[in-house]
Structure formats: structure tokens, C-alpha cells
């Protein structure tokens, strides 16, 4: 191809458009339903087989202790539907982690119903929710 002024302009234009496009594009965060659906897949969902410990009221949303007790679960996922990024943490348990328990500190943007999911060895998913009031939001 012979390099003409026209082709150069087209290339430069496309490059600029591409740069503009990536600079402007905000990554689309999946909503809580999507995050949960992706974890669950086609598995049956049951409630009550796992426990989620959170305070009922958190004064400071920057650090809230959360503990998941998921006897038997291979993997757990914590979802905060009112946060900018809905999935907060997921944990895979190895053979030695016989209690299938994990505790951490999370950020919560505001009052919401936090969801914990556990994938069980039979392929089913256990679900538990905890309503929490947050006085000062911790995201942002």
C-alpha cells in the first residue's frame, strides 16, 4: 500500500479514536445479581447451611469484621450489593482448612443486606444473608 496523506489521516484518526475510547470507557461492574448468578450457575440454592457473622450496626463502614462459617464448603463468596464492586472476597479452602471458616475486615458503602454463598461438595450452593446498618460509608 502506498502511503498517501489520506491513509495517514485515517490511521491517525483511528488511533486517536481508540485512545479516546479506552480513556473514556469505565469498566462496567456487574451488579449483585450477576455476581451471584455467575457463582451459582445451574446449582440448586439452599439456605441455612452456612453462617455469616456481621454486626447489626457498623459505625464505621471502612472496617467491619465479617466471618463466614461454611462447614464442608469448597469455596465461599461474599457479596455487598450496595458497594461499588459487589463481590468483596472469595476464598477457596484446601484439604487442611477443615473448619471452612474465614474472617476478614470489609468495607461497606452503606446499609445493605450482605450475602454469603458457599459451594458444597455435592455441587449445591448454600446461601445466607445478613442485614447491616452502616452509619458512615466506607467506600469512596
Amino acid at each position, binding site marked *: 500500500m502506498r502511503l498517501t496523506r489520506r491513509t495517514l489521516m485515517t490511521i491517525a484518526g483511528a488511533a486517536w479514536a481508540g485512545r479516546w475510547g479506552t480513556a473514556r470507557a469505565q469498566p462496567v461492574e456487574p451488579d449483585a445479581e450477576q455476581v451471584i448468578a455467575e457463582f451459582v450457575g445451574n446449582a440448586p440454592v439452599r439456605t441455612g447451611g452456612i453462617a455469616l457473622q456481621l454486626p447489626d450496626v457498623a459505625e464505621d463502614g*471502612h472496617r467491619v469484621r465479617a466471618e463466614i462459617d461454611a462447614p464442608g464448603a469448597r469455596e465461599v463468596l461474599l457479596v455487598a450489593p450496595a458497594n461499588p464492586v459487589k463481590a468483596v472476597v472469595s476464598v477457596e479452602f*484446601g484439604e487442611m482448612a*477443615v473448619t471452612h471458616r*474465614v474472617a476478614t475486615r470489609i468495607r461497606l458503602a452503606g446499609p445493605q443486606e450482605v450475602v454469603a454463598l458457599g459451594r458444597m461438595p455435592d455441587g449445591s450452593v448454600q446461601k445466607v444473608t445478613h442485614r447491616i446498618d452502616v452509619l458512615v460509608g466506607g467506600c469512596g
Partner: protein
Amino acid sequence: MAGGVRTRIKLPDTAAAGEIITIKTQVTHLMETGHRLDSAGLPMPRSIIHRLHCTFDGETVVDVDLRPGISTNPFFEFDARVTRSGLFEFAWYDDDGSVYTASEAVTVT
């Protein structure tokens, strides 16, 4: 974030065979969410630790996938049943490519 990162591990030095021990881990890190604006009003890029992998003699104990919803200085507590003496190793993976590591030996008595 690669500078000044400190790791802390708390677990017993010794355990009885078959005992379930509790492991506490923390790493100093800002965990910048990517949703905050700086003083000039420009978005501050996400910079977090996105993975914590704990192994015992090479075998996974827990593999944690962290998102921006984890607080500054990520803390994790979990349990492991130890049946023999060995080495717990911990690796934290930073968005900037750094990997911070720590290890603790446990002797089964």
C-alpha cells in the same frame, strides 16, 4: 505500593498431631479502591492486593481472591488441621506485580 509493606503472621510454634490451629495474617497496604478522587478531582487508579495464597509444604490451605471491598491492611483469619511438622508459606499478590511473602514453621510434638 511496593515499598514499606510489612507482613504479620500469627500461629502457634508447636501443635499436637491432628490439632486444628488458627492462623491470623495481615499485610500493610492502602487497598486503593479505584473509586476515589484525588485533591485535583482526578480518579485515583485501583491499587490493591488481589490474592493471598497460603500453603503448607506446597499444599493449598486457602486461596483468597480479594477485591476493593477489603479494608486497608488486609486481615485474614482461618484454621488448619496439622498432622505433621512443616512450613506455612504466605504470598500476597499486589496489582503492581509485587509479591510479598512470609513463612512460619510449625512443629508437631
